[in-house]
């Protein structure tokens, strides 16, 4: 029972941390290696919110706005010149991640920061005591997923984004301002990454380099999902389960590399990964 809850909540956390990267990769065809830095930015928004004495939950919208605004700047000055050089974009965003990490270190120091727990305690669920916050994270993943699905399926931006994903040249020919779609998508993706950073604060330690570990997992999950949002959900469930089960029954060290290795093997066997299903 505990394992099932662990699998579900782990998958939810993976989903929350990857969805921003997926949005950007899907539309811009660019891998944002500064994704980890945006997660870190979000977590430090929670630190700042706590210092200002705000309600811990207020950090979530704050992080989304800050992340999206900074994302907009990054898109204009760093991503835009590199549209045609996707491998270089990986490097430039990685460099940006270094810069952000060092700026945060200069501002807050390199030590671990503590934030108030968004929801402490445990609840009785199906016969076991379970961390209340992990259940909240599961709910948050569902809400974010639903909002994301609504944006894609139900709004004009989503329609334009889908057009750009399918055939960018044609979309431009039809009068869609693809540069604007890319810009807004990058802002949303960056905002979602920062939001994930806030949601991670009760689960992970907050330090200037916290994002890197999450980046690799998110990157691998997005690679196997091939820009499909349902495939991402499926990949999070399957690989999250693998991570939990291998950690529990084999060794936590193997559990920690389970996602990377399994995703690499999956891609080797089926280059489209989970999106085919």
């Amino acid at each position, binding site marked *: 029972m505990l394992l099932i809850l662990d699998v579900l909540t782990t998958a939810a956390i993976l989903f929350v941390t990857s969805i921003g990267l997926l949005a950007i990769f899907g539309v811009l065809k660019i891998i944002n290696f500064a994704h980890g830095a945006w997660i870190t930015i979000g977590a430090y928004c929670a630190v700042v919110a706590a210092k200002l004495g705000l309600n811990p939950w207020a950090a979530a919208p704050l992080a989304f706005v800050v992340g999206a605004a900074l994302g907009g700047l990054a898109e204009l000055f760093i991503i835009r010149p590199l549209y045609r050089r996707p491998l270089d974009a990986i490097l430039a965003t990685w460099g940006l991640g270094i810069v952000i990490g060092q700026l945060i*270190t200069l501002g807050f120091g390199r030590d671990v920061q503590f934030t108030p727990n968004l929801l402490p305690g445990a609840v009785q669920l199906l016969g076991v005591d379970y961390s209340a916050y992990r259940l909240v994270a599961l709910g948050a993943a569902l809400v974010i997923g639903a909002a994301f699905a609504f944006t894609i399926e139900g709004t004009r931006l989503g329609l334009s984004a889908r057009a750009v994903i399918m055939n960018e040249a044609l979309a431009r020919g039809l009068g869609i301002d693809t540069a604007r779609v890319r810009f807004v998508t990058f802002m949303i993706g960056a905002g979602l990454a920062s939001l994930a950073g806030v949601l991670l604060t009760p689960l992970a330690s907050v330090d200037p380099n916290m994002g890197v570990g999450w980046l*690799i997992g998110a990157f691998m999950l997005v690679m196997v999902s091939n820009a499909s949002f349902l495939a991402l959900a499926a990949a999070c469930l399957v690989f999250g389960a693998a991570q939990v089960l291998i950690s529990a029954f084999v060794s936590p060290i193997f559990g920690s590399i389970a996602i990377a290795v399994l995703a690499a093997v999956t891609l080797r066997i089926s280059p489209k990964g989970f999106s085919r299903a």
Partner: protein
Amino acid sequence: MPEDASAIGLSGSAERGRPRLSRAAPFVVAALAAAALWAAPLVLDAFAVNVLTRSMIYATLAVTVDLLWGFTGILTFGQAAFFGVGAYATAMALSYLGATPEWMAVALALAVVAPAALGLAVGWLSFYHRSTALYASVISLVLPIVVTQLIYSGGEWTGSSSGLVGFEVLPLELEGFFRLSAFALVAATLAAWVFVRSDAGRALVAVRDNDARCAYLGLSPKRLQIALTAALAGVAGLAGFIFANASSVVAPENAGFLFGTELVIWVALGGRGTLLGPVLGTVAIDYLAANLSGDLPFLWQLLLGATFVAVIILLPGGLAEIARRVWSALPIGRSAGFTPRLVARSSRPAADGAGAPLLTIEGLAKSYGSLTVLENIDLEVRAGELVSLVGPNGAGKTTLMRCLSDGTEPFKGAVSIGGVSTAGLTPNRIVALGVGRKFQVASVFESLTVADCLLLARASHDGLSPIGRAETIGLPQAALNVLRMTGLDRMLAEPARLLSHGQKQALELAMVVALEPRLILLDEPTAGLTKAERTTIGAALKALTGELGVAAVLVEHDLDFVREISSRIVVLHQGRLALDGTVEEVVGSELVRTIYSGAAHG
């Protein structure tokens, strides 16, 4: 006036003398560098010697990263892992076996063989038919993470998170290790320099530019990439061996993903694809880092990161790009590259067994999901025939060409070339059966010269020298004719990206003809060409089939052109073979008239 004349005379003699001079340049530079580095410990203080020893080991790694990424286009973070495996193999061997000369030799062998074997496995995983550049980068990113976690889980064996310290090492002093790593760096750089300037070095750039074209020239880009990965993993392991000895400490960070990204940053800042740029960049940055990071640790990282971003965006060629621009602005810097001469070679004897069909297609069908593109295609083509494939857009002509030239394409039915089934064969193996394919959109190597493109076209027959440059390229007369008729033979030193559309088409045709195929597949070779260019290509094709007995299958829209050169015409309509007959039969038929006037859809 007399001054002018003498200037011309001078430049002429300089040009004649230059090839020999430039061939000797790497050795001269290497000898000077080796001498300077040998003497360097005499004037440097202990701190500088210590730091530079490490910097030069890292620079050796940077050379391997540059070969993979700068030249071959494989963005890799994995060299750190191979380095770490080499360092740990050394440290573990020396810790548990001892440091006698015999065990030292064992440690050295392990430090090279273990990473090379791992590199072979990683290469096999990363490079396969239709693999993408991004996938190789993904694997190179996973590798250091996996290796690091294995080191953590190694317990006492690997020292887990604290690493291994205090093992016995080579009996060298500080200066000795400095000279050892200097020697390794100079040797690695020299070998890489000679290699990238050789004919085989062109193949690296060709794979980066256009690996599909490589495969359709009968080369195996994947095998080259795998071999390169394994060999350079061995070199990285060797660097790890020296590192473990020089520092007598190994730690998980040495194999880590972050170190892998640092290597890429150094190479990018120094200037990818220039070898000397990454070497100097790595030594300079690592040395500066050692001096500055003590005083202003975060600011140093910040500056480095910001510079890196700026260089990637604004100056993709790195700092070497600036040096190159300054150099080429100087009068002595503007030298023409080495260009081989073209010579005619006797063509292979015409295909034997002229009676049997060269190409046999039986019951070929292809569908994408529920959409059927080709159905029930049966066709035989004999030596000396020029079969034109006509039909409206969407009839399946290009799809058919793809099925003929790539046996891994999923389709039903059977295709055989000279009696050999192509089922499951990758394009390079089908080319080996004697097939040449020209694409609809000219597919050449954009950053190579015309001469180098032709050189690679001959590589599957004549091989490529890994150390030098061939003085001549032997081409069959038919290929020479194409070059001569289009004037390309006077543009051998021109980079292919500067050619006009028609010239690129002609170059690709010459490359395909240079393969001396028995069967040549041409997808709209005259699309977008002028009338004169079209006539030229038509004449070349007629000569190939008529005089040399090559079989040709041609996809074409221009019925006048088809009528002039074909010996047979096949009409594809809505995925089926609608007509197969002589020129008169087909051109005069009712069906062709209705298809082309669009009435068939009515």
